[in-house]
């Protein structure tokens, strides 16, 4: 080949490499940036007066005097709204039945959307559910609700051959010429001063329990559950995995059985995670009965099985990579086989083993399918350590899925879902970082 062709080939190869890396970086950016920007909204947002009221009434947090003063101002601004409604209700009493019924129907919609925005009207009875006791606690949600007070959606089906078209109707137009008409302009003008949004840094999102099915509060039970499950899985998988790897590399012969065992382990690594989940349910819960119901213990055991092949494989490779001379030196000095493995080979292989553990730890934290049937629930308290043996727990991966598919009010609580995603990603990152640092330290020690 001519030199110039070779150079060209070389260059184009480098070019491809750079291109691939840039593509990967872009993809990563595309994934990480929305996760971070949307997720952060669960922690930092503009909280309204309703938020401060909730914190004060339910958690006795915040400055009592200040919040009460703010509340007073807010209530004074709200009063004209409810006065207007009262006046309107008086006015329509004199109308004909048909007309009155029509107005009543529309008024009910107005009241409903106002209730969603500002909370129950004065004099209403106190609802049981928290989500109905307060108006919008977040300014971003409140803005949507303000729009719903001012406008409503209608669908225009006038063209029978096409799908309907969405039309925004100004609610004001329904009440033209009545005493309620000024209400809409008033709400539009004063909504911000009524709700008084202020920037909140809600770091306790991580450490609060959820209240009213994730409408309020944080995600501590989920975070704790994920930690328990991950650490539990490591607790079972690491000793088993390393011992198995030692056996396979140092003790096992070359028989048919051993090679069969090896290929079984490799196959196990490729088994879909949902199969592990079902196995965990059938074996750990229904047959062995490690616990009466789903539990963290059963989930950890299932996850341990899932990551076991990875741990075994990585440890095996790491042990194999230890130079033979180490072992020979130890044996020649009179050390027994067991002693050699424990004091010479394992320490030398430790960085490699840790890499395998790091990879599998991330997987255990993020895996959903194995815990659906064995450990995860959608609502539950944060568990004490000893309760993990018998009780199920919420966990981040499962609850992210649950919130976006099964929750009855998905759109109202998107921020919680995003916050959970960010937390899970951060959690995996932190676990990995910790392990990487640990690994670097150990290799340094070995070299030094």
């Amino acid at each position, binding site marked *: 080949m001519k030199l110039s062709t070779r150079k060209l080939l070389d260059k184009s190869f480098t070019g491809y490499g750079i291109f691939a890396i840039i593509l990967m970086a872009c993809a990563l950016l595309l994934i990480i940036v929305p996760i971070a920007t949307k997720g952060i909204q669960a922690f930092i947002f503009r909280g309204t007066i309703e938020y401060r009221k909730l914190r004060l009434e339910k958690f006795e947090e915040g400055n009592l005097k200040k919040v009460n003063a703010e509340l007073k101002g807010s209530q004074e601004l709200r009063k004209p709204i409810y006065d207007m409604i009262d006046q309107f209700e008086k006015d329509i009493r004199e109308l004909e039945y048909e007309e009155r019924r029509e107005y009543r129907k529309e008024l009910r919609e107005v009241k409903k959307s106002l209730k969603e925005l500002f909370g129950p009207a004065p004099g209403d009875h106190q609802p049981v*559910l928290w989500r109905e006791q307060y108006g919008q606690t977040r300014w971003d949600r409140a803005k949507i609700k303000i729009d719903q007070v001012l406008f409503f959606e209608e669908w225009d089906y006038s063209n029978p051959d096409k799908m309907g078209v969405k039309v925004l109707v100004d609610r004001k137009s329904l009440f033209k010429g009545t005493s309620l008409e000024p209400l809409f302009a008033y709400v539009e003008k004063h909504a911000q001063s009524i709700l008084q949004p202020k920037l909140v840094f809600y770091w306790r999102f991580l450490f609060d329990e959820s209240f*009213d099915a994730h409408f309020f509060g944080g995600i501590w039970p989920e975070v704790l559950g994920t930690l328990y499950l991950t650490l539990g899985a490591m607790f079972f998988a690491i000793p088993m995995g390393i011992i198995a790897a030692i056996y396979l590399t140092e003790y096992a012969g070359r028989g048919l059985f051993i090679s069969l065992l090896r290929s079984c382990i490799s196959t196990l690594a490729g088994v879909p995670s949902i199969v592990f989940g079902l196995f965990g349910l059938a074996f750990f*819960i229904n047959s062995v009965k490690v616990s009466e119901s789903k539990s963290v213990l059963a989930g950890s055991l299932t996850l341990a099985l899932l990551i076991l092949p990875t741990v075994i494989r990585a440890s095996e490779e790491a042990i194999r990579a230890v130079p033979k001379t180490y072992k020979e030196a130890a044996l020649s000095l009179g050390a027994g086989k067991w002693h050699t493995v424990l004091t010479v080979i394992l320490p030398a292989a430790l960085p490699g083993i840790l890499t395998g553990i790091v990879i599998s730890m991330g997987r255990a934290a993020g895996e959903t399918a194995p815990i659906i049937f064995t450990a995860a629930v959608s*609502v539950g308290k944060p568990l004490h350590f000893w309760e993990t043996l018998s*009780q199920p727990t919420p966990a981040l991966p499962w609850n992210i899925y649950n919130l*976006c598919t099964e929750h009855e009010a998905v*759109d109202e609580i998107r921020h919680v879902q995003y916050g959970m995603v960010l937390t899970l990603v951060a959690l995996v990152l932190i676990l990995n970082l910790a392990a990487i640092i640990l690994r670097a330290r150990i290799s340094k020690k070995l070299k030094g």
Partner: protein
Amino acid sequence: MNIIKRGFALYSALILTVSLAFAGNNKLVMDGSTTVGPIAKAFAEYYMQQNKDVNITVSESGSGNGAKSLINKACDIANMSRFMKGKEFKAAADKGIMPVAHVVAMDGLPILVHPSNPVDKLTVDQVRDIYLGKITNWKQLGGPDKKIIKISRDTNSGTYETFNKLVMKKQKIAGDCEYVGSNGAIRQRVQSTSSAIGYAGLGFVDKTVKALSVNDVFPSAKTVASGKYPIARPLYMFTNGYPKLGTHLHGFMTLHLSPRGQEIVESIGFIPVTQY
């Protein structure tokens, strides 16, 4: 090797004793229907606020799984959006479990379409024909020329069973129907697909989807409670025997009879069993 063996024995013995010691904790485990899920979750949180010493967990995996869980003694309460089948009763009795049904709420099964769909009423027969694959285009129902995309719950679901019984009259749903795993997923599928049709519990209907009148009756609290709306059903919680008086299980299972419990049911969008 001896040390390891001994260590292992010790370690498993430890786990066993600890788990035996704490098995009798104050916990209630609920499993089952995704339709009953919102009620169960709200009840659980309300009950836990009143009784700080109890932990109630709720999972939503479908009515069939709830029944299986109760039969395997893996849960205390099985949430179900259909009644237990004879087969399940038999399996339960064989294992010494005596399922007792508690009706916690009533629910209608609105037929859902995308809000842009001009069709606003159907008859039960038309719905059945759609799912049988006899009607395939909205044009046949007075709508625009668009192929109907059928969405159904999976066969493990009580909502599916109800639909199958009341609408399909146990005839087989056409093969090109799409099956999804929860009520929320049906709503999401319908709100994002303009030519879709689906069905879900009353509590899952919001402004992003349009509920149709069926046989000229619109699904609402009133029409379901009065029995006028043709596709309605009770929602159940099953326990093993009637809960022992004074236990948390008993307290929890009578919550739906109290005014507060009924208010919760109503706020979530379902229909309380009695008028308080």
